[in-house]
């Protein structure tokens, strides 16, 4: 399976056989209070459909999203609203991007919040908020491959580009748990900024970035040593949550949550290069870059919308209505030629 990043860069260069130059994408938004996924056509700048996750909005909520390496499957972590124990609603749901149909539902464990996919597409990793654990599942069968103790109130989760390491954040203990996938072992826990939310690896896998909501910072971790080597201060009132990197990995986009801003961090200097506030929707909880890196989309939890950012001007160019309580946003690849 070709990693999505390589695929997208190749598509941008017009060099993938069979894909032509027409490969497009859709934006998927998990609507926490609608129990649904909004589907957005970025070219039309409009919501074009909804995927129902449950007929019981208010009881069941979709939150974290992840995309398979080929971009063709979106995975959603689904749970109830009482993060105390495992419930029948707790699951990982797979959605086929081509058809927008749910193709699989796997039992996950206690209250999965965010989800990540291994680079080979074979493993699903989920943070289990209720039980202070992370779980690995076989992506094809849903079989549990391992379950691991983490910090308290597990949230962000990411798999390194080489598939060897998984980082899991825990918001109450302010920690990141390191799991080695070769022998499925917890290597260590490390202290990061206050209330860590999301985690993302750099493109080369040498660094990882952890957003600290109350700290107002990004902790930069040296992955080979699992040590925090730098802290990016986003500003006094910053409340960073979801993150994404541009295709080259030069800029880290950080959703500002309660600050209603997007921070753009230059990963070479570890400094804030841009702060986008004007016309932003309220409480952006997550952000994702388009495959070509020319647009960014945010999931705005309080304004029930997606803000569209032009990454040339670093400005908001549009708002697209979504469902109630957008939590996460990801991009799925559509093979338009087929």
């Amino acid at each position, binding site marked *: 399976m070709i990693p999505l990043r390589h695929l997208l860069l190749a598509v941008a260069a017009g060099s993938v056989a069979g894909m032509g130059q027409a490969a497009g994408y859709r934006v998927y938004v998990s609507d926490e209070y609608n129990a649904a996924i909004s589907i957005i056509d970025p070219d039309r700048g409009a919501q074009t459909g909804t995927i129902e996750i449950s007929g019981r909005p*208010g009881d069941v909520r979709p939150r974290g999203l992840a995309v398979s390496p080929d971009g063709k499957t979106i995975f959603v972590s689904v749970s109830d609203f009482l993060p105390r124990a495992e419930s029948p609603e707790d699951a990982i749901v797979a959605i086929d991007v081509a058809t927008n149909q749910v193709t699989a539902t796997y039992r996950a464990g206690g209250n999965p919040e965010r989800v990540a996919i291994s680079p080979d597409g074979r493993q699903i990793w989920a943070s289990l908020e209720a039980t202070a654990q992370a779980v690995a599942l076989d992506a094809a069968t849903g079989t549990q491959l391992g379950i691991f103790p983490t910090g308290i109130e597990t949230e962000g989760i990411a798999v390194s580009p080489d598939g060897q390491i998984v980082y899991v954040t*825990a918001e109450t203990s302010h*920690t990141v748990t390191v799991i080695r996938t070769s022998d499925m072992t917890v290597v260590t826990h*490390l202290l990061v900024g206050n209330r860590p939310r999301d985690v993302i690896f750099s493109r080369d896998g040498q660094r990882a970035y952890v957003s600290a909501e109350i*700290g107002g910072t990004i902790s930069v971790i040296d992955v080979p040593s699992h040590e925090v080597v730098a802290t990016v201060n986003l500003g006094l009132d910053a409340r960073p949550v979801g993150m994404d990197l541009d295709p080259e990995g030069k800029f880290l986009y950080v959703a500002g949550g309660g600050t209603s801003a997007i921070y753009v961090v230059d990963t070479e200097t570890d400094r804030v290069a841009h702060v986008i506030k004007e016309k932003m929707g309220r409480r952006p909880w997550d952000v994702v870059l388009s495959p070509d890196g020319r647009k960014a989309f945010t999931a705005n939890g309080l304004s029930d919308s997606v803000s569209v950012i032009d990454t040339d001007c670093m400005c908001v160019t549009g708002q697209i209505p979504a469902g109630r309580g957008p939590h996460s946003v990801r991009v799925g690849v559509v093979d338009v030629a087929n």
Partner: protein
Amino acid sequence: MLRIDPLTGFALALLLPCGADAQSGYAAAPFRDMPVALAQAAALERMKVAAQVMVAMSGSAYAGIDDTEAGQDDDGLRAGVGLFRSSLAAVAPDIGERLDRALEALAETAEQGAPPAGPAQDVVDLARQAERALLTPDRPDAPQVEAALMASLLLDEGGVAESYAEAVQGDPAAYLAGWFALARVNALWRGLAGHATPQQSAEAEAMLAMLGDLFPGESPPPQMAAYPEQAEAPAQQLVGLLETIVDADLYPDRDLVGAVARVRDIAAEGCADLAAGDAGAGREMLMIATALYDRTVAETLAVLAPDLRVAIAQGLQAVRAGGSTAAVRVCPDLLDALAAGREAFES
């Protein structure tokens, strides 16, 4: 007057050049500079809320509802007084004695199954008097102190956000606790609003309005939104705004190294009091150290150094329960464990 612990603050300022204000960028850090005073003020706020809940649950709107939760509040009332009893006795012994008697009367009515409204109202009134005796209203850092109290009322256990999460699951006492805590937040905000810019004020009012929608009246609405965390987002956002408005760090655990150092300093002061034969002051300081420890660093230590967490919890319990003899025996190990906790965060 109140134990604002200038010595501790000065020592911390020397020991922590990268402390909370340096780390967060805010001009003030009330939870760093006056942890004892704020722990006592927060305990008084919780006491008032718990007593108000008991008064309200005696009323007709709650007739027939099992008041088990209100009884639990009575236990909480008596536990909380330990955080300020000695300090209050030093500055206003009459209020302290009357408050103890009111709490005793409240316990007796609870035991007898009688309506607790009368003694509970006495507790509310005396807690207000205690607050005035312990906290000087015209102190220069009053806005930061009041903002810190608002943060505690919004985010701590028993506060607005946590109470809402419990209320959604059908706990009427929790709903009332949230309602009264929010009323106090609104009252404190009216005193602070003048420090805000028009935009900050509008944003804060919007967050308060969102919280008000969740607590529309003294009785729970017939149907509550089933999202336990729904109050947390506006509460957190409001605290963030308050930080900007008063230019103060309002999260006591933002700087964990500083937090564990504060716990150690307060525990050391308590140990010294106990060793000197002042059991009341010693226990008070150790209760405050325990409360601060539980609130700020215990959960992180549980992950990074679980053995230390157990050792510290056991040490605090043993010193509090055992008096001066235990202090002499246990305190050195306890203080060493707290110092090791700080090292665990720094490594």
